[in-house]
């Protein structure tokens, strides 16, 4: 499974995307695996109490997990994941 990262998260994973073999079937499981492999990523994505930081956007097939089942959102091997730090702009 390919997971794409953006903006300030890219340096933490060393590139635009990460390939995960044998991926877990929830967002939570995937993030746990990624946090073990990439130092600093956990702190960028989670608050001290373990909730996803405000304004961090995690998309499964283009849908923000805040509109699916949060960290328990299901993921299949051919799903596409995009992970954004707080991004805004727009003029």
């Amino acid at each position, binding site marked *: 499974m390919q997971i794409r990262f953006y903006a300030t998260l890219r340096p933490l994973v060393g590139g635009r995307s990460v390939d995960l073999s044998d991926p877990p079937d929830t967002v939570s499981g995937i993030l746990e695996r990624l946090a073990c492999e990439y130092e600093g990523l956990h702190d960028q994505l989670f608050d001290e109490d373990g909730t996803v930081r405000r*304004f961090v956007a995690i998309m499964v097939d283009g849908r923000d997990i805040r509109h699916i089942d949060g960290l328990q959102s299901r993921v299949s091997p051919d799903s596409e994941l995009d992970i954004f730090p707080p991004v805004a702009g727009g003029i």
Partner: protein
Amino acid sequence: MALGGFANRVARINLTDRSVSYEGINEDDARKYIGARGLGVKYLLDNGPETDPTSPDNMLALVNGPMTGTEVTMSGRLAFVTKSPLTGTVTDSHMGGWSAARLRWAGFDALLITGKADSPVYLEVEDGAVEIKDASDIWGKGIHDTVAHFGSDSGNKTDVSVMSIGQAGENGVLFASFLNEDDRAAGRGGTGAVAGMKNLKCVVVRGTRDGRWRPEQGEARQKFREAQGAHLKLIMESPVTAPSSVNDDGTLKDGSGALSAFGTNVLMNAVNSIGGLGTKNSQLTQTTPEAADAVSGETMRNEYLTAEPTCHACPVACKKEVEITEGPHAGLKMESFEYEPAWSLGANCGNDDPAVIAKVIDQCNDYGMDAIEIGNVISMYMEASERGYVDTPLDWGDGAGMVRVTEEMAMGSSSIGQTLGQGTAKAAAAWGHSEISMTVKGQAVPAYDPRGIKGEGLGYATSNRGACHLRGYTPASELLGIPVKTDPLDWDGKGPLLKIFQDLHAFSDSLDLCKFSAFAVGAPEYAALYENVVGLPMSEEDVMVAGERIYNLERHFNNLAGFDGSDDSLPERFLTEPASGPAEGHICELDQMKEQYYEARGWDDGVVGEAKLRELEIIS
């Protein structure tokens, strides 16, 4: 005058008889309409909403807010307010940079320009006086040359700022814009076209920081510092706006806000990922991840960045200067590779070459044209070509053709250039195919597809200046979660939500603070700043009421100019052709959202009734 912040000096300039007179600010209007956008619309209303926007009687008002040029963070903005020749509505377009502050330091709250000079002129503003001067030796020049002519620069190294039109405004392009220094545009609505019709080339302002407003010593200054300190702290600590800095190896330091690090174009990948990025004239709502990333803020920072300029009193520095090093545009250095034109000239034109985007934006900044409209008019032309509606076709992604046709529009040097220079809506209508015009009230849509981000669809439809994302920026909620996260694919509730955004932005545009402040602060901070600059009580609720009053004032102007609910529409494509990508199958449910919106506004089919006008003290 009892109100703080204001210079209490306004110049009325009649170019027909070349007269200048001076007056103070009307205190009652300043209390009700705050400044900049709100006060500017009031000047336009008093000038007559039925005025033909192409006639000498139309007014071009350059209006500061009470905070402009002060120490308040992000206070370097100026509103250009006029009746738009593109839309027929009232319009206001704001520029950042340094000109706004300098105009205030030169002693003015506003310049109100009417009439038409019998030969090209410019205005010179210094020390509380305005002179009308001969512009025959700069007429015909681009903006970059005009700025250089007066010895200005694109920063704060001199004491002179130049706000100018380019050849597009001189040649009657209806979406011509004003720019200050080299790259900061009041882009939308054709303010530059109005200046061109008046034979007005530019406004040259001389002023130094010594002219800025400061509170009295003692308690007043202490309280001002507290309010400004709280405002600044939130901006410095927001994960969006926190200033960025780099380590020795060039990598970004922890805590760098994404807007500061990557500029507005950090949105490119995010909007594309949810299927909200209009592609090929909005026939699709998503491009490939590779095409989006090729022109994104991340790529521009990593591969093209040369400098990170800012505006007056802003630590965020979201402006990104880039240099193209290869290909036909090698050597081009430019600023304002922003999200909007990166979309309009990128995915929307089937183009993923950042050098072409940089080149056409720079053309817009030199000829003086709205870079959102230009991307739309070109993409509409490309779709017309694909469908066989035109004799001289332009293919999707033809970068050389995009550069060529941009020049032809600005210079009016070809038949196709003259047609396209009238804007997307008029050009499509001239070919008998208005259905491929992605416009509202004659102005082209910005970079959020209303099928993938539905609140913006309502925002485009009900904007008082034609399609616009800045009137009510619901993507803050639909993408980011400010103030709360709402689902971009759900229409329900977007009416009341949009009203809150529209009213809040109407207030901040009238202060006039950069809109990006709203990613970090809100009504409580705006109220505290207002109280401690202007010196009048202002609560959080008062902020929202004043914003509502300003929004209704604009709508009232438009109603008197002949607009009603039937003009609050969207192109048929967004209502009937389903989206692609993650928003697949979705259309924009405009009618349902409009019903909720009008109810929240208390309007009858898009018209502000007398009772509402009285309630908001617009009429007595």
